[in-house]
């Protein structure tokens, strides 16, 4: 009576709908990621709209629902309304964990790789997580471009996010010169990565700049 998974894709680590998409709507993900990604911080509604890059009405509706349910607290200082994740909500821990492991991956990587900021010119998330087609079995693929970055250092910075996500993170590190040369030579791996969906962690990919 062995149970077989219905979707073969889910075993290989890619699926049509990712973990985050299966649970939350797009605007909801963005708002939750901000609020629960930084529970120590409060945001103005205008800030959340700008940072989420979503429509004002959609964000306002999400906020109203979150406040109504008690997942988010709202208060006013002067004429400004503040919103903050409610740490005393009964499901705060669980929800934070789910958000971190699904749509919070870029935030987590940005924080973890911060020590590379002075040397890295570009850090991109690619692969199934960036495409929003990840399953719990998917690795997290990261491209790091910069000079004087040792692989041992990268692995040591990724130790904590790997533990928190319970997923393997695969970094590929190129010097700027190697990166440009591979782009010029139409390297199959890099061409595929840059043609697909990527999520910027640090810097943005500029084809003209890379071509020198």
């Amino acid at each position: 009576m062995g149970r077989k998974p219905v979707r073969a894709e889910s075993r290989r680590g890619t699926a049509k709908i990712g973990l985050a998409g299966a649970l939350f709507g797009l605007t909801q993900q963005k708002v939750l990621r901000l609020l629960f990604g930084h529970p120590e911080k409060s945001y103005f509604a205008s800030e959340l709209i700008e940072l989420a890059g979503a429509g004002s009405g959609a964000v306002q509706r999400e906020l109203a629902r979150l406040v109504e349910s008690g997942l988010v607290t709202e208060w006013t200082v002067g004429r400004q309304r503040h919103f903050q994740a409610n740490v005393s909500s009964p499901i705060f821990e669980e929800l934070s964990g789910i958000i971190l492991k699904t749509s919070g991956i870029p935030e987590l990587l940005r924080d973890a790789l911060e020590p590379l900021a002075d040397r890295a010119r570009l850090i991109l998330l690619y692969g199934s997580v960036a495409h929003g087609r990840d399953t719990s079995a998917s690795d997290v693929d990261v491209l790091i471009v910069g000079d004087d970055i040792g692989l041992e250092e990268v692995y040591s910075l990724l130790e904590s996010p790997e533990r928190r996500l319970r997923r393997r993170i695969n970094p590929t590190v190129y010097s700027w010169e190697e990166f440009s040369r591979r782009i010029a030579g139409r390297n199959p791996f890099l061409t595929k990565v840059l043609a697909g969906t990527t999520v910027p962690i640090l810097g943005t990919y500029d084809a003209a700049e890379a071509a020198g």
Partner: protein
Amino acid sequence: MPPKQLDNLARLGKLKIEPGARAEIDGLLRSSSARLKDAADAELSPDSKFDLVYNAAHAASLAAFRWHGFRSESRYLVFQCLEHTLGISSQQWRVLDDAHRKRNLAEYEGDLDIDNALLDALMRIAIEVLEKARALPPLES
């Protein structure tokens, strides 16, 4: 010594117990050192360097593995046990793991796309593994 974790793996049948011999270990260390020297040749392609350094790291790792009295045909396992045989850090192990995967992938897909970050890290680690393996006291026979 031998490390407890390795004994447990032996009990599970993952690795074999077989006392190492001095001549065998010396041979592995010499082979590792020769490959590292060859890899320093600037004329070599990154792919050839990678092969040499990878095999140098493996030979030195195997020397330490044999020194502790274990044998295994699995290169992966020999690398995996470095934490216990020579006290290699988890970050260094990840680099070896990365190199091992790239090498396996290349055998099937024929394309070895080696970047300097991996090659440089692998070189640093192979040198350290060799130094640590050489520092093990010589066996009686």
